[in-house]
């Protein structure tokens, strides 16, 4: 038992430097343009986004198309505007490129997404950067999960300053 453990630890440490290396097989996510806010970084806490971003987008798409609710917090357009920023060479990746924010993980996990067969995969205006919205934050079922009341309050009171 002990031997097995030692072997396991050895094996893990042997691979550690590899995974930290730039040529690692793990996806390297491009940086977002800006933090949504200091507490949550993204429009929801990062770990919530990693797990549930598809639910947010799915929820929002029905609200927007069928009801005409056009809040920006969970809109796919805003994801693209912030996460698919032009690189240092001022090129903007398209959904087929492995550098595209969505593709990096979706290629790695072999999950095919159809979003960009209809939706734009690049920001319309590359200078654009969104600011925090929205009234809907307080009520959202995912939003309330991992946040303390102070953070929620802060998020709810922040004004929409979109241009």
């Amino acid at each position, binding site marked *: 038992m002990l031997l097995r453990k030692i072997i396991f630890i050895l094996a893990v440490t042997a691979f550690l430097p590899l995974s930290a290396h730039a040529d690692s097989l793990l996806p390297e996510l491009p940086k977002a343009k800006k933090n949504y806010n200091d507490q949550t970084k993204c429009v929801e806490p990062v770990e919530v986004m990693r797990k549930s971003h598809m639910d947010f987008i799915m929820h929002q*798409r*029905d*609200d927007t*198309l*069928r*009801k*005409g*609710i*056009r*809040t*920006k917090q969970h809109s796919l357009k805003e994801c693209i505007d912030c996460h698919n920023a032009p690189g240092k060479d001022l090129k903007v990746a*398209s959904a087929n490129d492995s550098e595209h924010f969505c593709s990096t993980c979706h290629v790695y996990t072999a999950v095919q997404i159809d979003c960009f*067969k*209809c*939706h*734009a995969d*690049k920001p*319309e205006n590359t200078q654009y950067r969104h600011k925090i919205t*929205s*009234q*809907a934050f307080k009520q959202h079922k995912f939003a309330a999960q991992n946040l303390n009341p102070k953070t929620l309050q802060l998020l709810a009171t922040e004004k929409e300053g979109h241009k």
Partner: protein
Amino acid sequence: MSRKTNQSEGKINQYRRNFLARTTAIAGMTVAPGVILNSVAQAKPVDQPASNKNRWGLLIDANKCSSGCNSCVTACHEENGVTGFGNPETDAQWIRKVKLTDKQTQKVQTIPLMCQHCEHPPCVDVCPTNASMKREDGVVLVDKHACIGCRYCMMACPYGARSFLHEPTTEQKYPRGQGTVESCTLCVHRIDDPNGPRNPACVEACNAEGHKAMWFGDLKDPNSEITKRLKEYGGVQIRADLGLNTGVRYQNLS
């Protein structure tokens, strides 16, 4: 007893005062120039759903529509990123110009024809996946997330207003995807503009061209330009016999 009456009267007076104050404020807003003029109606807050208190529609004057002019079509396709693929038989047409010739007098008229945004849309009736849908405010749309491309709606539409997209798209402006049906959205992104509904691209282009043959507005608002014009001059539906109660009306059709 009398005191009680006085009290309730006082309350009523208070209500009256509040009510009057509010109505005056609204009147003041409406009178103030430039405030309302830029937008067709009051803005819907972005986090609120479209409501059935509005019904968006178009009014088209066939006499003012110029036969040589195609600017509404160009503007629509420019606005919505509707590009052709060199296949004239299948390329999407969200709006097209239709030429009408009177057999007896040979009078020629042209009119723009697009989705008529029916109150009882046949395309919605036949859709097997509920992708073809009508918004609360009367805008008929295709939910491409649910569309399976069966094209029943295209067959059901008496106006031939819908198109099927055969080719894959890239660099699209608004969502457009291969294998789905699409049609005029009444520029729904402009209707939902946080600064208030704006004229659709076709109307804007028609005005810019100086023909001013199209009006956009709320058919349920008695004070909107479109309702006033309809009330004064009347307007007809194309294929009114079908009882679809279209949101697009025409004037001076011969």
